[in-house]
């Protein structure tokens, strides 16, 4: 076991997969010599050369589209979007193409590709370097969307994504990159895509969240524990398609559910989580399904006052938990 940062776990997953399978390669902006603007691909250019760590021209639709072509051929591209915010020019390639290749060809072709992108706020990134973009894609069958919260999950899930025979969007919270550290085994392991994970067992209320929200929830849960309130925390990990069984089970367990996301509230992934519960566990609920999310404004501003106002944090999660517990 080594204690790794979230970003180091990601780099290591790519490195190991590239060593293991020479069909795996990386393409993106500044991923080569510079090692990525966040340094997620650091060292890989030196190890694998410019043919397998490709500094692509500044054009996201081509990065994804070329990746799709290579994946259809049988390689396993990992495309990096420099920021999740800049995935938008590639939406047509992701939604119209990658997600539909297997289905439209009646299983003749497939597209084993990973698209990695740092997302999320709290880093003075302003409107266009802070966004949560997952809701745009979390309604497209054929895609899988993974958002890990810990170094352990990040490594295991990224490896699973690279080995997956279908396209996977892999969103990494950029504030977690160096903030979050954790134990990661030396041995090769993968984590099954599509499975949520209980990050804390509890009895009084359930928090369902993902990404950085998991850490905020765990911190807040410790505070509530001191007052004898026991919080159950479910980390979705795969936010599309959702792990319905795990969600229903977690909701039923305590009867009180708080859904936490950093994304805007209306139309977020948490809406679907709520709908699943309201469809399958309604009579097990002792309180309305509560959501804590960013306000419905385009994205978080640059000025620290407004950024802080937008971002969720452990205090806000704690307040929401206490309100729900008192219900």
């Amino acid at each position: 076991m080594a204690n790794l940062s979230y970003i180091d776990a990601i780099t290591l997953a790519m490195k190991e997969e590239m060593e293991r399978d020479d069909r795996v390669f990386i393409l993106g902006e500044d991923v080569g010599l510079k090692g990525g603007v966040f340094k997620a691909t650091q060292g890989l250019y030196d190890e694998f050369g410019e043919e397998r760590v490709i500094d692509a021209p500044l054009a996201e639709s081509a990065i994804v589209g070329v990746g799709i072509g290579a994946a259809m051929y049988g390689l396993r591209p990992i495309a990096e979007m420099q920021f999740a915010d800049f995935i938008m020019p590639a939406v047509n390639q992701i939604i119209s193409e990658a997600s539909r290749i297997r289905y439209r060809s009646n299983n003749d072709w497939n597209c084993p590709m990973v698209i990695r992108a740092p997302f999320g706020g709290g880093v003075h990134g302003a409107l266009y370097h802070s966004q949560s973009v997952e809701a745009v894609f979390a309604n497209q069958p054929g895609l899988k969307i993974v958002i890990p919260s810990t170094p352990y999950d990040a490594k295991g899930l990224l490896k699973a994504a690279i080995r997956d025979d279908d396209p996977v969007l892999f969103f990494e919270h950029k504030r977690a990159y160096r903030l979050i550290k954790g134990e990661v085994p030396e041995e090769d392991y993968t984590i099954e895509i599509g499975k949520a994970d209980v990050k804390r067992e509890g009895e009084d209320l359930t928090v369902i969240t993902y990404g950085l929200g998991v850490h905020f929830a765990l911190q807040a849960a410790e505070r509530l524990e001191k007052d004898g309130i026991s919080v159950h925390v479910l980390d979705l990990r795969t936010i599309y398609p959702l792990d319905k069984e795990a969600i229903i089970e977690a909701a039923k367990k305590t009867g009180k559910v708080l859904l936490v996301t950093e994304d805007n509230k209306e139309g977020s992934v948490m809406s679907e989580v709520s709908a699943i519960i309201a469809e399958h566990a309604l009579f097990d609920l002792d309180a309305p399904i509560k959501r804590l999310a960013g306000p419905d404004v385009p994205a978080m501003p640059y000025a620290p006052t407004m950024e802080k106002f937008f971002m969720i944090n452990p205090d806000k999660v704690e307040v929401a938990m206490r309100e729900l517990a008192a219900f």
Partner: protein
Amino acid sequence: MTENKHTALGLSDEVVLDMYRTMLLARRIDERMWLLNRAGKIPFVISCQGQEAAQIGAAFALNNEKDYVAPYYRDMGVVLHFGMTAKELMLSAFAKAEDPNSGGRQMPGHFGQKKNRIITGSSPVTTQVPHAVGVALAGKMQKEDFVTFVSLGEGSSNQGDFHEGANFAGVHKLPVIIMVENNRYAISVPLSKQVACENVSDRAIGYGMPGVTVDGNDPLEVYKVMKEAADRARNGEGPSLIETICYRLTAHSSDDDHRQYRTEEDLAEGRANDPIVRFAAYLKDLGVLTSEIEEKMQEEIMAEVDEATDYAENAPYAEPEHALQYVYGNHEEV
């Protein structure tokens, strides 16, 4: 006297007859589809008519046992040469379960057949350009020597994906040939409202690749430039852009009526340049195509089209629940 152009290109009489046959087969299948559509038997047709020479000239310049193609919806000529059969095309027109392109999921013209290296296509135009570039990149990485061919219409060359894909190919000197089949219309919008350049091939220089415009009504002209491009590609000299000028002899699709926006003159000009008529005349002038051969060919083709139609018409649709299959690789059976 008609000059023998094909021998100079290294094409035997047999091969040019095969080219002609494939053009004719494409035309006859296409015509049959219109009849079926007008008879209410198939909901939709989109035509290759008028573009067969460009498609066949191009396809024959490729290696159909090794190269990859990312055709666009009009490219019946290309996919026929790459191994798709009349029967398979008809199965697609009838949306039947056996359709190898999509099992009846996609409209006709949305080609794809892995065993023949025909890359699956969709409706949003021009997305196939980066795909072809990606296949070429993969081939280069794997040290294979195949060429990847991708085609699109001139209107579609205005999509961002054309620019981004071509540029990627240029920077990485990839073995890709991008062919723009310029039929002067994008549905109703004439060339003059689509582009401001003289030739679409003028765009090549912006991607550091050779660009050439040829008469798309002459399969041998197209063959010639395509062959050169394919040779360059295989020699590691990178991508090419080829523009073939042709006419769209039909309406955009069975949902369109082009008399609303095209003059009778324009339509007549198209008919006067029908590539099949022109190529037949060339072959006849040289004595390569005799009445005998032609008659037999027509008969065989009609038999093939009839058989394909009958088979496809009687073939079953996919079961309703088949709609749930193949969303992901490890799909659950229903």
